[in-house]
């Protein structure tokens, strides 16, 4: 039992070491030449536009669900006029970044790992190298740039949709005036809240890119291996996002309390 635990721990440390080295290579590759503009544009479209519907749908229903739950509780406590404030804080600080990152992780991370993993198992990555092309620069960097650009944008979209979903419940179910709801929301658009709401998706984008590309590039074991890597990619990305989200929240609360 302890032998198995020791090997699992050793394997975990090895994976972290390899992932760190791979991530560093990805970062360095951003600054090298050639720059693959066409591939980057293609990824911006695929990740940004491709994930939009999913993020909007998630935002609409998460916003309405949350507002419905909270408005009833707040009505009982006689504080339903603070619904806008509550929606703004919970959405901008937590719900928007987390929901968007998890949705993108489920959709995009799986796609990236499966695509690169399939190329690896059919020797296409070696064929690229044989042509003098750096596969990290060609395949991983455009995806990293697209994720770092698009995840914050999608998060803003998700925030707006979620808060709008809350507005529907506030106005039509809880009978709060539109003005009361929106002014409470605007009141909580502080520097600290906006910083937290944008810093998180930026960090999550790096996590999705690093893990999904790493899992693709290290795929082995044929088609079965591609399936295993894809599963692990989504699982590790989601877990890491949740852990890092807690650490970021804790850190920002510690160092930026006065701005929140």
């Amino acid at each position: 039992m302890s032998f198995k635990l020791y090997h699992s721990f050793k394997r975990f440390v090895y994976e972290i070491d390899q992932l760190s080295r791979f991530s560093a290579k990805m970062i360095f590759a951003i600054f090298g030449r050639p720059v693959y503009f066409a591939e980057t544009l293609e990824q911006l479209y695929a990740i940004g536009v491709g994930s939009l519907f999913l993020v909007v749908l998630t935002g609409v229903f998460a916003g309405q669900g949350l507002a419905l739950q909270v408005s009833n509780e707040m009505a009982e406590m006689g504080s339903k006029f603070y619904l806008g404030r509550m929606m703004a804080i919970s959405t901008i600080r937590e719900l928007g970044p987390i929901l968007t990152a998890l949705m993108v992780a489920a959709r995009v991370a799986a796609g990236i790992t499966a695509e690169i993993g399939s190329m690896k198992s059919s020797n296409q990555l070696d064929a690229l190298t044989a042509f003098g092309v750096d596969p990290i620069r060609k395949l991983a960097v455009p995806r990293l740039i697209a994720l770092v650009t698009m995840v914050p944008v999608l998060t803003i979209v998700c925030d707006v949709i979620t808060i709008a979903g809350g507005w529907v419940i506030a106005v039509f179910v809880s009978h709060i005036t539109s003005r009361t709801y929106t002014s409470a929301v605007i009141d909580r658009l502080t520097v600290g809240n906006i910083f937290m709401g944008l810093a998180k998706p930026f960090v999550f984008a790096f996590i999705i890119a690093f893990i999904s590309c790493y899992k693709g590039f290290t795929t082995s074991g044929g088609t079965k291996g591609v399936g295993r890597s894809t599963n692990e990619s989504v699982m590790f990305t989601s877990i890491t996002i949740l852990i890092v989200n807690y650490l970021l929240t804790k850190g920002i609360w510690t160092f930026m309390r006065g701005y929140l």
Partner: protein
Amino acid sequence: MITFEKVTFGYGDEPVLKDLTFSIPSGESRVIMGPSGSGKSTILRLILGLDSPWSGQIAIDGKDIFAMKAGQMRELRKQIGMVFQDGALFDSMTVGENIGYYLFEYTNRREEEIEREVRQTLEFVDLDPDIIDKLPEELSGGMRRRVAVARALVSTRPKIMLFDEPTTGLDPQATESVLKLILKLQQVQRMSVIIVTHQIADALKLADQYIVIHNGRLVFDGDVEHMRTAEVPELVDFLAPFRSSIEEVIRKKLI
């Protein structure tokens, strides 16, 4: 000249090649044979610099390839064409995009010019130029293998061509066409061709000089006549089912 000097390499903790020493002079061709899993394909990956040896030295034209900088390595790879097992074609690209990949990536040539060269190369490898817009999945195994050869030819105008199991999984007709193409490359393009295969019947048609690997060790390096008389037990066992084919090759040579 490709030189392996006491090369040892493995995956994980397990050595695949052990103390391998041989050389292939410029312009000469070699067939590297051996049972499955003996480390043959690894030799090609090392020549191309896709993997680095644990110890020993690999040199091309006297230069240690693992002492080279990234830029020098890229230039060296332009002299080497590689046809991977199953072709390793980029499956999201058409045949034309696959063959013209290097030209699209590294040159500023116009699209029509590239298409003309792609069509000419398709004809050279005995394929219908009208398959240019097809995807690799629409081609048969033999056609895919020939498209892979065309891609290696167009891209870098290599001096050395490496083939990894070029006929594995092909029907007899497709095998014959791929073998003819490899011979054509040697005779018409005067290329140094290194072929890795475990199909001895095919190997005997492709070259005069052979290297045999067994369990990661070199057990034979020489011509077919020496191969017949060699008394290394691993080689004797490996060639036993093919004695009559070897005798026939030697008889034809004598005629």
